[in-house]
């Protein structure tokens, strides 16, 4: 017999909602979970190469750059046809990648400026198209807005097929070319001397990144997409020194973070209000007054996933056995305590 815990308000509903979510009986929950797992695998793997090659900002700029592509894809049929959305977004991402390369090669501007230019130019174009679409009665209900911050619950079968396809391609590329990727990532000069087609690998990485960005839009949204690529890989980087392990950890973190974020965003509004009350009321008693929550709908998926991922990163950053803040602090204290003068006769 469990001892009876004092039941806090909202706990029972939380339990009920959690179990309903994890029973996977709801079709949309099922497809959202499947999509998230696949996205976690895909983005976790690619993110490692991106972070190690210091291309983190590419993810951000390509993520923003897909917006006009989505709008054009939408304009083809005036519906959210996954095929056209995917095609448009991929085309926009590739165009953005190409433009970044052209600007970098064509003048003395630094790469971050080139990326910032493409990011804001494309996103601006996207906003222009979007405002045009939304002022049209046919486009008003299109629901393109959810592409900003993502809505995993709206993942359809066609979306899932696309996600699955891209994930298989990414997985295939990483497994089949693992050695090449590894050498190329850590030592480009050495890779060149081995006869590995470095330039082609770079373009392949860009293409795969663009594809995985495009499939992540529906789930996490364009604005915060880069976090799904960067944060799990950065977390893994803090925990291990080996590339295979890093890939595995990044995938694990991405999948776990994605699912937890999904669960968070699937919780209903009332539950959030209750949860907030749990924090608020004790604080109010000691004199800190926080405003009450007034929320009707749940959280958007993107920010929820990002927050969970960032929490995981924070944990790794603090507690990592080799590179954590705690470990660093302990090491420093130990160093200070050890006598700096060598023992006599030694």
């Amino acid at each position, binding site marked *: 017999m469990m001892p009876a815990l004092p039941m806090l308000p909202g706990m029972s509903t939380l339990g009920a909602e959690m179990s309903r979510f994890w029973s996977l009986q709801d079709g949309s929950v099922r497809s959202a979970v499947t999509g998230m797992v696949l996205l976690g695998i895909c983005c976790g793997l690619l993110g490692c190469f991106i972070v190690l090659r210091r291309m983190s900002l590419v993810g951000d700029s390509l993520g923003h750059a897909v917006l006009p592509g989505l709008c054009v894809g939408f304009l083809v049929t005036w519906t959210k046809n996954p095929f056209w959305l995917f095609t448009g977004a991929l085309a926009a991402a590739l165009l953005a990648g190409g433009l970044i390369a052209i600007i970098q090669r064509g003048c003395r*501007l630094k790469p971050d400026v080139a990326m910032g230019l493409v990011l804001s130019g494309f996103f601006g174009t996207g906003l222009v198209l*979007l405002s045009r679409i939304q*002022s049209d009665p046919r486009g008003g209900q299109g629901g393109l807005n959810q592409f900003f911050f993502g809505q995993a619950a709206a993942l359809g079968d066609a979306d899932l097929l696309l996600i699955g396809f891209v994930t298989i391609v990414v997985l295939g590329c990483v497994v089949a070319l693992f050695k090449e990727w590894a050498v190329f990532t850590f030592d480009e000069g050495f890779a060149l001397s081995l006869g590995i087609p470095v330039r082609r690998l770079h373009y392949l990485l860009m293409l795969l990144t663009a594809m995985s960005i495009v499939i992540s839009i529906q789930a996490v949204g364009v604005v915060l997409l880069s976090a799904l690529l960067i944060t799990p890989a950065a977390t893994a980087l803090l925990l291990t020194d080996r590339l295979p392990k890093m890939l595995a950890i990044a995938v694990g973190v991405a999948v776990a973070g994605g699912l937890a974020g999904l669960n968070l965003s699937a919780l209903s509004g009332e539950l959030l209000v209750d949860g907030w009350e749990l924090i608020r009321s004790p604080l109010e008693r000691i004199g800190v007054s926080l405003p009450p929550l007034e929320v009707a709908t749940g*959280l958007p998926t993107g920010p929820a996933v990002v927050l969970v991922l960032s929490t995981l990163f924070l944990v790794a950053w603090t507690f990592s056995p080799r*590179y954590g*803040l705690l470990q660093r602090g302990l090491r420093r204290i130990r160093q200070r305590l050890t006598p700096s003068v060598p023992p006599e006769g030694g």
Partner: protein
Amino acid sequence: MLPVNGVWAIPGVRAIPLAGAVAFTGAWSELWSAAARYDTLCTLALAICVALGCAWLGCFMILRGQALLGDALSHTVLLGLVVAVLWTGSLGSGTLLLAALITAVVTAVMIQVVSGTSRVKEDAATGIVFTTLFALGVVLLSTLAPRLHLDAQHALYGNLEFVAVGEKLAILGMLLPMTLVQMAVVCLVLFALLCLFYRPLLVSSFDPQLARSLGLPVRWIHAGLLGAMSATVVGAFSSVGAILVVGLLIAPPATGFLLARRLPGMLAWASVSGILSSIIGFHLAYVWDVTAAGMIVVVACCLFGIAFLGAPGGGLVWKAIRRGRLRLQMSHENLVRTLLKWQVSTRAEPHNVSELAGELGCSPTTLGMLLTQLRWRGWVTNSRDGGLRLTERGVEEASRLDRAHRLWEAYLVHQVGLPLDHVHPSAEELEHLLDEALVARVDDALGHPETDPHGAEIPRLPSSPDQPRLFAMSRLRIGDSGHLVGLTPPVDLPVTSIARENAGVIAALQLDLGAGLSVVDRDIGEETWTIRLANGRTVVIPHELADQLLVELHSVPGV
């Protein structure tokens, strides 16, 4: 010719209606009608203020390599705003500014801390920090949305169109929108600060090491810029949104960077580009009924594109044109050289273009086109029996190139010390790229050699193209005969004292004008010319003097 009622009226010609012009001038007259003029002016003024502030700050950010810090800041400021509003329950501008400053500093510090205390590099750290803070802002916003007059999408692309509707403030008898007044103040303060701290900003942006060694507070300058940026961002945020801020922080300064070589020029061009994109973007947005903020950014990026393609000197188009011209010039020059070689070796004129093409290894079509261009330039004509013949100018051009090629080969062998079989490809390039004056100096430095290292004769140039028989004595070769006609000032050594000294030497050598002479010997190593005068006397002339003695040859030397 003025647009009248949206139709371009050209006197005497039927009025040509242009759909775009109609829409545009329609929108123009609507926007600037008496009723709407105030709103239009206020909105435009705000857009221009934002553009100017962003352009100035962006210039320094780009030069300091922190372009994406602006991106990060403009996202994370949302969190500061939401927290501030939650805390105080109001949208007062003082609180918002303070909150934005705090968030900006927190963002910058967090990026530094994460990248400084872990193996995660700065780019990834930036990505992590800004997504986290922005996500937090969005979550807070979406859970508290009903209570706040802010929403996440609005924060992304702003609400420029409704600026004039907002809260008003009376200044100097004019009723101005609150946001405009705020932004104008930010802009003025920014301008004053820029003027005041121009030197330290300049030094610390271009050379932080130097700035530190001069004792400038580099860290404080950085902090100050960060503060100015967050003030601009927060001033711009509610009206134009985060993305416009990022766009305006990067695109106009990047345009300025391409168009100017110095900081004041860059600042000026960035301002011009910012103002232009505000005005054009605003009007286009009205015509097409789209978001003004987005349109302004698009126009700013288009202006960058124009600068990128067409900037004089550095633009892609100019570079391509220059490269294409050079390549064309090179193929023209190579072709006349080949034709000359063909004429000399076969003593016949080529008739068959395809045969020639086979010899040259290019397609007959290409060759035909090149030959047409050469005829056009007057280097090649058709001979009477239909063959190709070099004109006098063509021959001149070809021998000029032969001369350059052989001189460069001689230079590379004798002065640079390259082995004989390595010099041809380099000389092949040098002959096209470097100019006549340099070739003349190479000739001089080598002591005016007669042959190149392969033994081929190096063609020589008369001292003026109009008089093919006039040569400096240093250009003469063994066996040449002529008579002395005068002194020529050294072409590339404008030292009159040498000429005066040499006048004495000439007198000492008892050379008379009009004296007949012939060259009997040359010493390349000693750089002397031994000549026999008509009276049988032999004189040794040093190089320096030989350069200045002008001789008219008795016969025109063959090429």
